[in-house]
């Protein structure tokens, strides 16, 4: 049976995969467990869906556990998420208690899996207290923060820091997000998988069929923002930008496509706000897609003239990466991880307002060659920097450092 990992050299080149095998060799036989809060929806789940089998094929026994919680737990963790991104939220004591109790219960059910694991990756704040509740843990524990923590609301961070500081290492996507902690703090951006259904090349006929399904005209310019319905993604700002640009380009169409994530209780409220803002404009398509709509999202991004990700806070923005992989110019909010990907005049434009986005939309629709050139550059930029193979290489390097205590130089002979 052909292995998943053997499909990557055709995209990344053989050397990249050979390096992964070299890095994995001294780690063979270790047992690694990842823990997060959702199996479906959002970038973390998508990364883990492919990273787990690839790590296993590299000889590292890797498992994935998902914690479970009630409504109060998710309300609390959503508030944490917003607070980490700078919102000054007041969280009632009752929710803190639900958060701690949920983690205590999950620790009980995960005890067997986590106590003896050689390395445990805990993703984001939701399962962070597990470290305190797994007594006699044997391995190294890493806290992986996927959130834009550039300016966290201090009281909430102070609370979470009590847990995070107990870890052996932490990982942030950007140096600007990294918080001072008493252990090594790695800087590892996330990644996309080029072999995921969301990112494989599609025929034009398949794209057109998806556009037909949603009454989108394939012959007219199309803006696409794919995101959870979340205020930090600024979907209302995208509608404002579209309206400003449409005054000059009456044929313009907009797609705002998103799904829900099981750990996001605010999604429905924001979706209603977006529908109200779109009102009766037949050229604005607000699509709530099921979690497994990878090919449809792929088709929408592939058919887009411009990808938009006008976030006002963004941990990384994998939808930007996906758009660039499909050779599209990207208009992105000047924030967080988008800054790492959208390089002004090279892969797209960073904007600070709906007016700025509208201006760049007009520019790109008028300067077709420039848009084309940005798309080509963007794809190569992703190939070099933001594919899952680079992500795995950096995780393996970190694991080697943690397990063998190497400092600054790891020589694989």
């Amino acid at each position: 049976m052909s292995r998943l990992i053997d499909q990557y050299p055709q995209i990344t080149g053989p050397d990249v995969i050979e390096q992964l095998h070299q890095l994995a060799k001294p780690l063979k036989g270790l047992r690694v467990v990842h823990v997060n809060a959702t199996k479906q929806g959002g970038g973390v789940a998508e990364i883990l869906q492919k990273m787990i089998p690839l790590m296993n094929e590299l000889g590292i026994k890797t498992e994935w556990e998902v914690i479970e919680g009630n409504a109060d737990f998710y309300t609390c963790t959503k508030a944490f998420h917003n607070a980490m991104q700078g919102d000054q939220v007041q969280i009632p004591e009752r929710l803190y208690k639900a958060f701690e109790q949920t983690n205590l219960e999950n620790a009980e059910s995960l005890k067997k899996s986590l106590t003896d694991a050689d390395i445990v990756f805990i993703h984001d704040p939701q399962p962070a207290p597990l470290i305190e509740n797994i007594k006699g843990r044997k391995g190294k524990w890493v806290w992986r923060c996927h959130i834009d923590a550039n300016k966290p609301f201090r009281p909430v961070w102070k609370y979470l820091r009590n847990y995070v500081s107990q870890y052996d290492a932490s990982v942030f996507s950007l140096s600007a997000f990294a918080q001072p902690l008493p252990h090594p703090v790695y800087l590892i951006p996330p990644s996309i998988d080029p072999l995921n259904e969301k990112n494989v090349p599609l025929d034009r006929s398949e794209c057109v069929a998806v556009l037909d399904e949603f009454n989108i005209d394939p012959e007219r310019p199309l803006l696409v923002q794919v995101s959870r319905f979340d205020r930090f993604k600024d979907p209302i700002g995208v509608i404002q930008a579209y309206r400003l640009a449409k005054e000059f380009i009456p044929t313009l169409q907009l797609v705002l496509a998103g799904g829900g994530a099981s750990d996001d209780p605010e999604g429905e409220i924001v979706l209603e706000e977006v529908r109200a803002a779109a009102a009766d404009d037949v050229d604005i398509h607000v699509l709530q897609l099921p979690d497994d709509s990878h090919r449809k999202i792929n088709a929408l991004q592939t058919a887009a003239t411009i990808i938009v990700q006008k976030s006002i806070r963004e941990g990384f923005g994998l939808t930007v990466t996906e758009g660039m992989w499909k050779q599209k110019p990207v208009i992105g909010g000047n924030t967080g991880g988008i800054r790492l990907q959208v390089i002004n005049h090279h892969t797209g434009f960073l904007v600070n307002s709906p007016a700025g986005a509208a201006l760049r939309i007009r520019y790109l629709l008028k300067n077709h060659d420039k848009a084309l050139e940005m798309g080509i550059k963007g794809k190569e930029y992703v190939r070099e920097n933001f594919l899952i193979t680079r992500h795995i290489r950096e995780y393996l390097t970190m694991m080697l450092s943690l397990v063998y205590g190497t400092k600054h130089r790891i020589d694989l002979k």
Partner: protein
Amino acid sequence: MTNKSHSKSITHQKFVLRDCALIAMATGKRARSLIGLRDQLETIEEESIYYHFWGGLLRPQFEDYEYHNDFASWAAHTLNDRTMAERLGIIDPTKYENLDQLRQELVELIDERIDELEEIPWAPRDKQFEFIVSDIVVFTTKQALSEPEALLGIIPKMSLGSIFYHFIDARRRSPQRTDDFTPWLKSFGKRYQDLIDGIMGIDPCLTSLSALRDELTEEFSNHLEVN
């Protein structure tokens, strides 16, 4: 004895081609002004100074290099202090015996500039200077070369990580603080002296790894013949 017969009489060590990658780590130390930068530089670990002079070569880059190091870039693009940027930008890190000497030079230049300024410019909160360190991971390749001529066909195809390892990182590893090619070529006596001079003439600063690869390719093509 001709150079050729000389080389045949000695068993030379093979040139083992290697590759590398960096993984970045935050130090948690930041600066918002030249005063903060100077204060942090006095105590920051040497690895961080190395990273901010050389690590940029392995980071994605679209623009041409205006300044060779991150300190000068930050002074220019964030503090808008072009004078400071020019003085920091001209520093040649290869001229210093060790990173501590380089640190002293940085601190002195910044101190001198602080004395000149009536007002110290501040960086916005989201554009602070972030001190980073990196781990380097070194990979083996399946290539071990017996004769320099073999490099002719290999250098143009070398990965950027490999160029970094043999041309930049080598300066920290070798006692002579040179690239890896030079001591190996010297082990063949005078036979490759012109090539050695050419390689030693390549400036590793203010350039990209792909441009360095092109320069090395040119030197090898100019001085070696394909057998």
